[in-house]
């Protein structure tokens, strides 16, 4: 709370300067556009936590500005334009839906750097895209799921049928299957990122169908809360550690860690070394973190940590052949390692997962 108040008053002082006297030239203004509220408990909160740490890191050398709850489309374009007009030197837009707006505004402000999260369009030299390899984290948690399930049914609460989500489903399933050939994956599409009651209903439906390990690619702790009520059911923290459900049912988590990236990129602007790039960091760079593994037997923990360490060491890639697509056709031959281009736009299930991806 205290930190927020301090920051808020800093922002107040900053705007006084922006509208009044000339700004201090040596300060870099870094701005952030959020799709949800800063306390959404998931995606946006993870970004905001990183932003606060970035502010802490740079102290008064950097000014931070943010806008929460920005709808995609025309509203985001206006917010970005205002930020650019207001003197922001680098603008991070943290939702896939901002992709076209980011590029449109970047065209108008060639001196401002734009960083778009999770997209693929870099139409101008002042646009960078960045994302995190969440599927690497799913590989670790998939291993836990495969070893822990007693019913051999693991469930996945999916949001929307987009590549990032499908990568997560496939990676979870492949790694569960690797340690437990009898495992079966059940996917429920909630068609929402953040609707606590619906996520609870989805988790309940999975539990009713005999699932005892629940993955989620939605933001709230509702599925964990339901798991907590049902003995023998476990789940994972999503976007943040969700440590309030430790040691069980939350046995592990995928933590979004954007701060290293934010600090690096803001520093690059200060140094004048910023260049357009496509950044896709994972466990190795710390962009994706695995929370403390709790409430599982030691061998399970060791196996999961080995997957994690191998990925970090670069000796193992979660999408290593042989992997077939759902229809039985070969996707990756034996020993073949997927290149980023192979799965950046993933829109198919791997062999063994039942059901269709809605589209």
């Amino acid at each position: 709370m205290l930190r927020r108040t301090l920051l808020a008053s800093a922002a107040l002082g900053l705007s006084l300067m922006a509208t009044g006297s000339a700004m201090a030239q040596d300060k870099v203004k870094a701005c952030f556009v959020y799709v949800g509220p800063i306390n959404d408990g998931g995606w946006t909160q993870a970004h905001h936590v990183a932003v606060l740490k970035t502010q802490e890191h740079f102290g008064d050398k950097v000014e931070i500005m943010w806008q929460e709850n920005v709808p995609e489309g025309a509203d985001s374009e206006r917010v970005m334009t205002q930020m650019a007009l207001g003197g922001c030197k680098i603008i991070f837009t943290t939702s896939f839906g901002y992709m076209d707006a980011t590029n449109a505004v970047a065209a108008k402000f060639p001196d401002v750097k734009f960083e778009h999260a999770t997209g693929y369009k870099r139409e101008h030299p002042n646009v960078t895209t960045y994302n995190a390899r969440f599927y690497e984290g799913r590989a670790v948690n998939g291993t836990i799921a495969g070893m822990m399930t007693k019913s051999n049914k693991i469930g996945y609460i999916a949001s929307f049928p987009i590549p990032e989500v499908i990568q997560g489903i496939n990676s979870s399933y492949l790694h569960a299957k690797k340690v437990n050939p009898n495992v079966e994956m059940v996917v429920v599409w909630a068609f929402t990122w953040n609707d606590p009651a619906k996520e609870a209903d989805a988790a309940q439906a999975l539990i009713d169908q005999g699932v005892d390990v629940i993955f989620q690619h939605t933001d709230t702790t509702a599925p964990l809360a339901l798991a907590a009520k049902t003995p023998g059911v476990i789940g994972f923290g999503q976007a943040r550690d969700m440590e309030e459900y430790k040691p069980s049912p939350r046995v592990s988590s995928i933590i979004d860690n954007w701060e290293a990236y934010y600090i690096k990129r803001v520093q690059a602007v200060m140094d004048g070394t910023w260049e357009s790039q496509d950044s896709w960091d994972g466990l190795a760079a710390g962009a994706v973190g695995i929370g403390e593994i709790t409430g599982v037997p030691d061998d399970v923990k060791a196996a999961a940590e080995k997957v994690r360490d191998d990925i970090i060491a670069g000796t193992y890639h979660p999408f290593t052949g042989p992997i077939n697509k759902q229809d039985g056709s070969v996707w990756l031959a034996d020993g073949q390692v997927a290149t980023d281009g192979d799965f950046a736009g993933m829109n198919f299930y791997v062999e063994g997962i039942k059901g269709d991806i809605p589209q």
Partner: protein
Amino acid sequence: MIRLERRASASRFWVWATPVVAVALTMIFGGLMFLLLGKNPVEVIRTIFWDPLFGEFAWYLRGQLLVKAGPLVLIAIGLSLGFRAGIWNIGAEGQYIMGAIVGAAVGLAFFPTENRWIFPVMVIAGAFGGWAWAMIPALLKTRLNTNEILVSLMLVYVAQVILAMASTGFLRNPEGSGFPGSRNFSNYPAAGNPELIAGSGLHWGGVTAIFVAIAAYVLLQRHILGFQIKLAGQAPRAARLHGVVPQRLIVLCMGISGALAGLAGLFEVTGPAGQISIDFNVGYGFTAIIVAFLGRLNPLGIVLAGLIMALTYIGGEMAATNLGLPSAAVQAFQGMLLFFLLGVDVLTNYRIKLGGAA
């Protein structure tokens, strides 16, 4: 004790003065809230009400007011006709989405043909999409006596699922490597809806909104249909005696409001939003209901109400960005403004009297 006494006719003075009083009261109470949140109230209120109109970047933000108000006005005018006649279409959001999808689908089907007739055809398709979606509750109401509030509201959620299907499936950009979202209309001139004058914020949607507001005003003042609509709302039995067929009126009013909402969606998706995406709708269909009543169901009032709503959105957004105000505080502030606008309105039709019963 305080009591209200009905005026013989609406006060001309208060018709214009109530919004001013309401804004002033909102500034006082909103200012208190901002003070409690540790902000400088004068600063915040200036940012919300003054800066978008006369501040440093007003040259940009004034245009944005039109971008934001356009769809609100367009939808609200359609809704106001129905509301006057006692027909409750609260599913404009769904009609807005369907207009956008149908219109965009027609345009994208022609990609990459360049032909000047493509956009007009899309406009018709957009209006048709909204109209058709509104016809479902209208026909269920007239044929099977099903309540239109429920049907139109439920169809919003159905439209949202169809929108998700469109952006991840049948309208997905084939060059988007599997990511959701359609092609962007700003890269397809024949189907795009850019600003008509650069920097003005005015696109075909805004122009249409102005035209529709005038047309609705004339309709209500001069045309027999306008008379029937007003009569049906105020005195349904008398309306029937005057030859008004309720069924026809329902189909007509729902159709008009659906078509206008569909148009708003089409203009938005081809212009400011740029593409069909999972979350492209931002609740204009619901906000427009407030705008309609705030404008007292009068076309010109609706235009003003739409601009006021747009101002609070844009000014509030600036206050959030520049002053670090939580966006929730802006929402609460908007709610307050609406309360005062609606509450103070009582002075238009009533006198406040002190003392006991007369």
